[in-house]
């Protein structure tokens, strides 16, 4: 019988939300191939996060130990491969986050598996849909190998629901690897706002802000939203890298996406087209962003955004 191994992602013992989207994809795959799903968490804090994940599925394995403290691709993929082999996994499913993208291909190479990356949907037991050419085409790909690795675009799958009863957590031990990579430091970008890929509302600014993000931030705070940016803004050094929405940045699909002063280049659209409701505010009535917007307002963002923030605050009172 097929065994589907979902590799979760965690930081300091807290499960990342994207894991639950990967689990949903795994559940859809299980419906197609009749497989049984097991979970796996790796690294410092894995046991605690496994406890959290066990509310959602039958068996979750945790691997902690020397060399796994930092999420190094070499050590984490080696641990995942060893676990997959021990558990007889026929499919490995992981969210296509920076972590998932880093380790999934190494797992595939070691297992002799084909990898379908960043999938949008599960078509059958071996076919998946994924975006190509910046989302200008959707391909159905078929993985021809007996063992398959799938990375999942988290924004395309709803979070899995809790199971009726909590599952079991089992500790797994793996051989210590000796990586050729060393962790040096992590420079966290701290923000009081929700994380971009997890937020239900996103307010993004583009070149039209001329680098002044105060109106963007004020509206974001009124809406309880995350702040995003176009590539032009990030390239100019006006906002940090990790705020970039687009093919080459983060892919978001919130229930409301507000694009202010963003022209709407293909590469930006690829990162936000999946949003439920899109609002565009731009001075240029011909800006391509209006073609994907549900509601377009032609006007100056420096005037419109503060007004919008005020109106939203009034509604929330």
């Amino acid at each position, binding site marked *: 019988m097929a065994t589907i191994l979902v590799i979760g992602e965690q930081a300091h013992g807290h499960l990342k939300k994207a894991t639950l989207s990967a689990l949903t994809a795994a559940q859809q795959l299980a419906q197609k191939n009749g497989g049984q799903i097991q979970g796996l968490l790796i690294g410092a804090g894995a046991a605690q996060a496994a406890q959290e994940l066990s509310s959602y599925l039958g068996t979750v394995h945790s691997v902690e130990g020397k060399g796994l403290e930092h999420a190094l691709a070499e050590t984490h993929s080696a641990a995942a491969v060893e676990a997959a082999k021990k558990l007889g996994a026929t499919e490995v499913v992981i969210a296509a986050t920076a972590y998932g993208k880093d380790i999934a291909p190494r797992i595939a190479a070691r297992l002799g598996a084909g990898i379908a990356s960043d999938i949008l949907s599960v078509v059958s037991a071996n076919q998946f849909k994924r975006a190509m050419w910046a989302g200008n085409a959707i391909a159905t*790909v078929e993985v021809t190998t007996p063992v398959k690795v799938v990375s999942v675009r988290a924004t395309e799958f709803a979070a899995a629901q809790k199971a009726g009863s909590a599952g079991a957590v089992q500790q797994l031990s793996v051989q210590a690897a000796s990586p050729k990579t060393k962790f040096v430091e992590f420079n966290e970008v701290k923000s009081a706002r929700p994380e971009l890929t997890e937020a239900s509302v996103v307010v993004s600014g583009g070149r039209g802000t001329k680098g002044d993000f105060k109106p963007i931030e004020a509206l974001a705070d009124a809406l309880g939203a995350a702040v995003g940016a176009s590539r032009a803004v990030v390239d100019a050094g006006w906002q940090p890298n990790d705020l970039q929405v687009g093919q080459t940045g983060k892919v978001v699909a919130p229930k409301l996406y507000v694009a202010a002063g963003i022209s709407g280049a293909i590469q930006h659209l690829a990162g936000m087209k999946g949003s439920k409701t899109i609002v565009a505010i731009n001075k240029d009535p011909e800006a391509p962003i209006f073609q994907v917007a549900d*509601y377009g307002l032609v006007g100056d963002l420096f005037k419109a955004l503060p007004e919008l923030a005020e109106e939203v605050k009034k509604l929330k009172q």
Partner: protein
Amino acid sequence: MKILVTVKRVEDYESKIKVKPDNSWIVTEGVNYRANPFDEIAVEEALRLRDSNAPSEVVAVSIGSGAAQAEIRSALAMGADRGILVKHDGFLDSDAVARLLQKVIEKEKPDLVLMGKQAVDVDDNVTGQLLAEYLGWGQATFASKKESLESPEEKAKKPGLKLGADKKSLQVAREVDGGLEVLEVQLPAIVTVDLRLNVPRYASLPNIMKAKKKPIEELAPAGLGVDVAPKVKVVRVEAPPARAAGVKVPDVATLVKKLHEEAKVV
């Protein structure tokens, strides 16, 4: 040091991409081609590392049809020293590309391999990682840097990847969720580059002329002993679902009303 850098021939991202009526692939007639923009950043970084660590050599590798000579030439015109084309017509999956590159690397024995984090045609983002595992090397994906692209360091064309004093390791700042992670990788290693590592240079006319005389070696998958049968096949390509046309609103008050009453998102 010897640096190997990949350059894939891809559809120009400014070209209009249309799906073929039989859903087998995209329409390629009338489409412009160019080097993968992420690979151009890899070439730029390779050149900066070479020029700050003489004597060094940069080898540009492409895998594809004979037409991919053009993308190798553009890397040579930027300043790479020589080229290698692994000639193959038709689709190759990322796994086959990784295994072909593995053979080229075993032959060339570079100290560092720089690649774009993904090619903007299939947007797979897996080849570098597959290659690192096949070689048993360390990897640093999504290489970026702390300095912005407007910084004095960038203007001075300094490498964003920091070579260790003993030249046996490389410090790489990686773009990950929530910030920048700095790793130290032992060489040889695979580094895949993200957008904000550098701004690639334009080739000057004299360098374009010089590039014409630089050698390009041609290899074949069979000669490298690689079976290129795909592990992942593309069975269908379709146009993305279109978004329903939206409406223009005259003012903020109307917008808020619509968001509140119609879309129910505020």
